[in-house]
């Protein structure tokens, strides 16, 4: 018998005796519906509140980003975005950048006119490590938590958004979602038939609290996270 069969066998034997559902005294039903599937439907109702209008969501995202020490800027148009990006490049004296091809990234990187490492095809990780910034698009922004949702398909692979010291996210207004359940619904509708091998919710720059619970930014990933939204 394979290990798989013996482990599954032990599980089935163990499950012969049913266990009570936590917090439920009538064992014929769950507290929030007839089944687990129904219980899960209520998730959005318990999570932190998010306003209905775009303005409320922007304000919530802004507040969350500030708390996380991420830099969020809502901009008028693509020209303004390019100007902001050039200002960042000057301020941090970027010499090389890394990016992937995309409508927003291509235009923004052209405006920067810096040597650019593309992560669309296989690349040298050492070269990516030496880049001053990684510029990527994203799948969505989540107002509820101040998160950026990326995937290997939307944001140039697994490492672009974590290896360079500054991660710049380019997003569009309509990508701002209310809450986490909406983000998961988006993942399902966008990728449901064939998910990318990597998906991540990025919530603020890389951080650690391992020394005396004191916040230190730039642990192993980027020290700075800038989100430019047009």
């Amino acid at each position, binding site marked *: 018998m*394979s*290990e*798989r069969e013996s*482990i599954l066998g032990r*599980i089935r*034997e163990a*499950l012969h*005796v*049913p*266990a*009570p559902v*936590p*917090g439920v005294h009538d064992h014929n039903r769950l507290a*929030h519906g007839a089944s*687990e599937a129904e*219980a*899960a439907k*209520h*998730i959005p*109702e*318990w*999570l*932190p509140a998010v306003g209905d209008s775009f303005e409320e969501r922007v304000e919530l995202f802004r507040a*969350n980003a500030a708390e996380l020490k991420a830099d969020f800027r809502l901009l008028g148009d693509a020209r303004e975005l390019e100007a902001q990006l050039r200002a960042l490049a000057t301020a941090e004296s970027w010499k090389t950048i890394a990016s*992937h091809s995309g409508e927003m990234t291509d235009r923004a990187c052209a405006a920067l006119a810096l040597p650019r490492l593309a992560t669309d095809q*296989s*690349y040298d*990780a*050492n070269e990516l*490590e030496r880049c001053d910034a990684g510029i990527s698009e994203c799948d969505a922004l989540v107002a509820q*938590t*101040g998160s950026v949702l990326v995937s290997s398909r939307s944001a140039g*692979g*697994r490492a672009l958004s*974590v290896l360079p010291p500054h991660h710049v996210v380019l997003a569009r207004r309509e990508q701002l979602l209310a809450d*986490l359940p909406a983000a*998961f*619904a988006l993942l399902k509708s966008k990728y449901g038939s064939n998910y*990318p*091998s*990597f*998906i*991540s*919710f*990025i*919530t*603020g*720059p*890389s*951080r*650690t*609290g*391992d*020394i*005396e*619970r004191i916040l*230190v930014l730039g*642990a*192993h*990933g980027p020290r700075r996270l800038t989100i430019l939204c047009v």
Partner: protein
Amino acid sequence: MSAAAEQFKHDAERLTRDLRHRSLIQTALKKYEAARDAKKSRYRDWQSARQTAAEIKWDAINHLDKYLEEFVGKIEARGTKVHWASNGEQARQIILGIIGEKKARSIIKSKVMTGEEIHLNEALEKAGLIVVESDFGEYIVQLRHEAPYHFVFPAMHLVRGEISELFQKELGSKPTDEPEELMMIARQVLRGKYITADIGISGANFAIAETGMISITENEGNARLTCALPKVHIALMGIEKVLPKLEDLALFLPMLATAGAGQALTGYNSFYGGPRQPGESDGPLEFHVVLLDNKRTHLLADPEQRDALHCIRCGACLNVCPIYRNVGGHSYGTTYQGPIGSVITPHLRGLQNWKHLSYASSLCGACTEACPVKIDLHHHLLQSRRNAIAQRPIWWERFAFKGFGFLMNRPALVAIASKLGRMAQIFHPLVKGTRFDPARAWTRSRELPVIAGQTFREFWRSRRR
């Protein structure tokens, strides 16, 4: 007493008296409490969120065979190799086998508690491999050759001066008092290792049956680098990590962050659904998932305590536990410390040798209240006490309770006993605290309560007269 029990008693006694240790832990946990309460208050209904989380986990664990098979089928369909290990030895052999096949030399690890559970680092080092922990706290305790102090905050027991001294000794760095500079030292050492390591080993916080993915929660980005740069990625996880649906994470990710560290969401929550797929530019070429039982099915077979497998390892029960806060993480001598460790360790390592942990509790219930998936922790500690006694009765305890029952059923004998007790108490100060004191276990550190001058029956009789 088992060796583990003696060690626990010894270390707990020493650390309880260590005021410096206590103030260190209190400071760290006070910061956590303030942050947790602030974030918890943002939920529209935390209690309902807990109930829903508990029900989803109940469904997952009580249909574990079905969901595990679904998870394995889905993740294998995308080119992942899944391995099954009944115990630690098998898991170590599987991992060593993959490493040997790749002729790998260097390994970068992100935090994996199941690795601690099966002593993976020791096995890898014994095989002559170079293993580096990349989580900052884990890296520190690895350099110190000690176990994590807390399964969420591994280096919580150290102050910056101690870490600076450690880095000076082990890495030859300059002394510093700045947490940021200390982090930079580790960052620089570890950066190169991600790129040169042959294999990355990670754990998993959740496994999604519906889509065949593992989910990893972290703040530093070290796990993301571990899963992005080396050519081979091995994820080691317990079989209980399965969740039915991807959208269940919309609840579990924020609850894990809030209960565990007082965050709205942890820095990076990443899902891995296979090795590099066609058309992708990076990521490992091979992805292995090792599913570990290691007595989890033993816990599963106990319906009374089965919900301990719902645990998402947030560490909230440790943070609020008055015992943990006094005896510290190392005293437990277990992979998983605190109340959850006291509940599951007897199942994982044997009830008789670890039953003493069931008594390392004031039964205040703070752990149960803090648990985001509503595990009935403090009642499980009581059940473990009962189970340990039922399995191996203590003859003198049984005899004593029989005697007590006999006495209490006979009012005349009770009256005589209370009279004798009152008389004996007059002479008690003569022997109090000495080795002739029959109540010494109590009187060493406490006052014996005074027996009332009149029993209720005597009072009642005098009143009617």
